[in-house]
């Protein structure tokens, strides 16, 4: 499968290098897979992505206890191993920082558990690669359980966001979005959803949603929507975030307090 990224190159305000010389494959797209204890699924996923697309693959190993890093490396991915457990968003941000530093034009993030299908990668990547949006979200509302739907509805209201699948980890970002999300302020987020979207929205990023089919999780389960207790905590967390970050309530400027 061949993708053309010419439009991104011309769109990108002409200040960033597209790929470093000597970069593996010199691709302009990096697929970031944050993985924690995904030894069983990650190898096949990496191989699929590498055969189906021209993208480079980076697995960010969130301090797994199993052989995730080895499996990913054997399959041909580049692997970053975190020394501490940072959670899905922490791992993802590591990937974004890496991509920004290495000069990739587009980053696509996917879950390493096999929920997101490599075949649908071009669908999510395209709007960003062609310069139609800064961020694309691969969403699949059908997969949502009752708990998840309830949570989304509340959060959409609170945050004033119009994204139907808030928690999807299947996303594409361009360099503008990467720059915003690699900021130290984004480091304090614990989840990849509301806080991330609020930051993007505040910075004036355009976000599109792409409907894609998804696989039910092969093994493991959502760490957020595990029990109603978790859902409650998650809503409390995200609700607080919404109240402190949405425009009506924010106290500006935000930089005075924390010395860098």
């Amino acid at each position, binding site marked *: 499968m061949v993708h053309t990224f010419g439009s991104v190159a011309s769109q990108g305000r002409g200040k960033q290098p597209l790929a470093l010389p*000597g*970069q*593996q494959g010199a691709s302009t797209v990096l697929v970031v897979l944050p993985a924690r204890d995904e030894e069983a699924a990650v190898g096949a996923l990496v191989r699929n992505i590498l055969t189906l697309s021209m993208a480079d693959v980076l697995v*960010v190993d969130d301090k797994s206890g199993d052989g995730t*890093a080895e499996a990913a*490396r054997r399959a041909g991915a*580049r*692997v*970053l*191993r*975190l*020394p*501490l457990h*940072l959670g899905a968003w*922490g791992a993802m*941000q*590591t990937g974004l*920082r*890496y991509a920004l*530093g290495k000069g990739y034009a587009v980053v696509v993030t996917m879950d390493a558990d096999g929920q997101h299908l490599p075949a649908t990668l071009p669908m999510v990547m395209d709007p960003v690669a062609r310069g139609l949006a800064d961020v694309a979200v691969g969403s699949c509302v059908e997969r949502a359980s009752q708990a998840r739907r309830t949570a989304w509805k509340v959060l959409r209201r609170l945050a004033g966001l119009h994204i139907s699948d808030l928690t999807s980890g299947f996303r594409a970002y361009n360099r503008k979005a990467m720059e915003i999300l690699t900021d*130290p302020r984004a*480091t*304090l987020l614990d989840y990849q959803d509301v806080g991330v979207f609020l930051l993007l929205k505040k910075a004036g990023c355009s976000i599109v949603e792409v409907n894609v089919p998804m696989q039910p999780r092969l093994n493991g389960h959502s760490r957020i929507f595990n029990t109603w207790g978790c859902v409650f905590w998650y809503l409390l967390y995200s609700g607080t975030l919404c109240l402190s970050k949405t425009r009506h309530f924010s106290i500006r400027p935000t930089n005075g*307090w*924390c*010395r860098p």
Partner: protein
Amino acid sequence: MVPAMSYKVVSAVIGLAISAVILTLIRRDRLHVRYALWWILVAAATAVFGVFPQIIDVAAKRLGVHYPPVLLLVVALGLILVKMLTMDIDRTRQEQRIRRLAQELAMVRDESTTRPPKPSPLKDSVGKDAP
């Protein structure tokens, strides 16, 4: 009378003991200077109020507080809350730094352990396999 006497002694002993402990800890470098400043003030305050508890009575009368100990408690509680708040702010800042460092460490580790293909700018990359 005895009761008045003992109350003053107890108060002075407690105040001086607390300030002595704090000052000892500071002198032993258990506290960063940034925090030591705050604690020196606390030590001084406990010593002064311990030895001269009547200061509180006078201050309470001036401020129209009928029951002087309440003034002390309210002010102390307020200061404790402020201190806790600043502690959490500080912890947040440290958490942020730790996370950034962890991310950077992961990237630096990658630089120094990658296989030959591209000549690494790091001199000491011996091409070892990752742990």
